[in-house]
């Protein structure tokens, strides 16, 4: 009989202390002139150069669906080949929109275990080559019992939004405040797809996609790549470059279909992974200074900030409205612009979140810098919340 309890030693902190020592990403957006492999290699070369390492022991590549977007699978090998690092082990990792977070976790585990000293964790997606993006993204939901009946991804999150509005009196304006705030943050990020601020009125009047979600509640279709170099803290010290420590890595899963969940207004994969992460790091939600969260739709940011314990359940909308999540607020959320404004090349997103944490914790975020940040949290989510990966990074 299968039990739901973990092994006693599961989820403990790993043996070797792990660091992020270099980061690199492409601009996110419609990169017509760049191929899937060029995007990945560009981001990876920047990360390698930024870190000062002279080799990597292995690499992981996050990509949700190279097969559907550009007809290319076996992406681990493709990228190792074109990065010029073959014959090192290279594996593609997939957890839908949480692929990037899952990649970073695999690299973390490999270094923590002592199996490798330096691992590249990269993510990439090429979504604008003409594939049916709505259909491809929908493969992250239950094909037979959700998608078959005509639901879309905006539709799934719209159903979460309507249930949340019904249960907690979250308002349409509060959803819009998430988009306004994230576009403002993204306007300060040179790598963001959309660097234009939007007004509350623009969000409220945007084209309706799936009631109550409008076009400006949705993250865009993007191309982009992101990569980080993960190594032991001991090795990072030798490189004499800025590094940050990984103090928690946790992952959880839930039912693939939204309708099978215990709650339609809470994401259990988020609260379960968060609890594990806080325990590993010995921290409370109030210890976290800023977070990058998976705002694929505005409602997602509201629900996730509640389920991470930053706000009381049902108060996430009010927090977005009253400035608690803005830079300078109680806990700045998505200082990078988030998926909403920075862009959402699916496989790259989770790695790009780690990059924002690294930049903030090493004091390199320019005009969007969070002052005196010691702990940053990254939350990356797959599908309508069937998978979630959370990392906490610490400044040194």
């Amino acid at each position, binding site marked *: 009989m299968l039990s739901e309890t973990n092994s006693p030693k599961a989820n403990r902190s790993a043996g070797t202390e792990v660091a992020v020592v270099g980061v690199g990403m492409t601009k996110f957006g419609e990169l017509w002139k760049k191929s899937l492999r060029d995007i990945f290699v560009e981001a990876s070369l920047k990360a390698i150069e930024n870190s000062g390492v002279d080799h990597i022991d292995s690499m992981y590549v996050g990509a949700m669906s190279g097969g559907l977007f550009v007809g290319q699978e076996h992406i681990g090998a493709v990228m190792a080949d074109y990065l010029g690092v073959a014959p090192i082990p290279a594996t593609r990792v997939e957890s839908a929109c949480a692929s990037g977070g899952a990649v970073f976790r695999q690299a973390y585990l490999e270094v923590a275990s002592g199996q490798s000293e330096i691992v590249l964790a990269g993510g990439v997606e090429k979504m604008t080559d003409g594939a*049916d993006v709505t259909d491809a993204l929908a493969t992250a939901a239950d094909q037979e*019992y*959700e998608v078959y*009946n*005509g639901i879309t991804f905006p539709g799934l999150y719209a159903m*979460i939004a309507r*249930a949340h509005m019904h249960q907690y009196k979250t308002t349409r304006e509060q959803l819009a405040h998430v988009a306004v705030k994230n576009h403002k943050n993204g306007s300060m990020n040179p790598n963001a797809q959309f660097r234009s601020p939007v007004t509350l009125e623009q969000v409220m009047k945007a084209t309706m996609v*799936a009631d109550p*979600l409008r076009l400006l509640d949705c993250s865009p279709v993007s191309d982009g790549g992101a990569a980080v170099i993960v190594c032991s803290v001991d090795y990072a010290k030798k490189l004499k470059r800025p590094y940050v420590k990984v103090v928690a890595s946790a992952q959880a899963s839930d039912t693939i279909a939204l*309708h099978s969940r215990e709650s339609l207004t809470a994401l259990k994969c988020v609260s379960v992974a968060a609890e594990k992460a806080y325990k590993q790091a010995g921290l409370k939600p109030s210890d976290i200074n800023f977070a990058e969260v998976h705002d694929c739709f505005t409602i997602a940011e509201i629900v996730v900030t509640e389920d991470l314990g930053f706000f009381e359940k049902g108060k996430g909308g009010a927090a977005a409205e009253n400035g608690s999540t803005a830079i300078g607020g109680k806990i700045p959320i998505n200082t990078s612009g988030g998926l909403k404004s920075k862009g959402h090349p699916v496989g790259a997103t989770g790695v790009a979140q780690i990059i924002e944490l690294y930049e903030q914790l090493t004091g390199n975020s320019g005009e969007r810098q969070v002052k005196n940040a010691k702990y940053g949290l990254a939350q990356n989510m797959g599908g309508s919340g069937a998978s979630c990966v959370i990392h906490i990074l610490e400044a040194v």
Partner: protein
Amino acid sequence: MISPRYHREVAQRYRLEAGKCKQCGNISFPPRLVCPKCKSKTFETVQLSREGKILTFTIIRVGPDKFSKETPYVVAIIELFEGRSSNDGVRLTAQITDCDVNKVEIGSKVKLVFRKIQDEGKSGLHCYGYKAVLI
């Protein structure tokens, strides 16, 4: 929708056949090999009730290609009345059809009906299943 793949789901889409766990009574729709509640692996086949209520819904204004001619249409999560106190009620996702999309509300009572859902490409199978109507 490839034909064998469609055919495998016919018992669920045409007849609402579910798996009732012989150990804890939990109903899984579609049937599973492992009960998500008690992890037992023995089930009996039961048919779901056809009536329920809307827990949440959306109006799809921008649809996938297969459904683009049908917009706007309502998709809802429905909780069926199974009449078993030990059960939360089986939930499923379905379109709400034959209705004014602006009249649908959380809590609305609905009944499942048999309808064409989509087509297999331009010359393949018609694919059927359940939608719901307001009652």
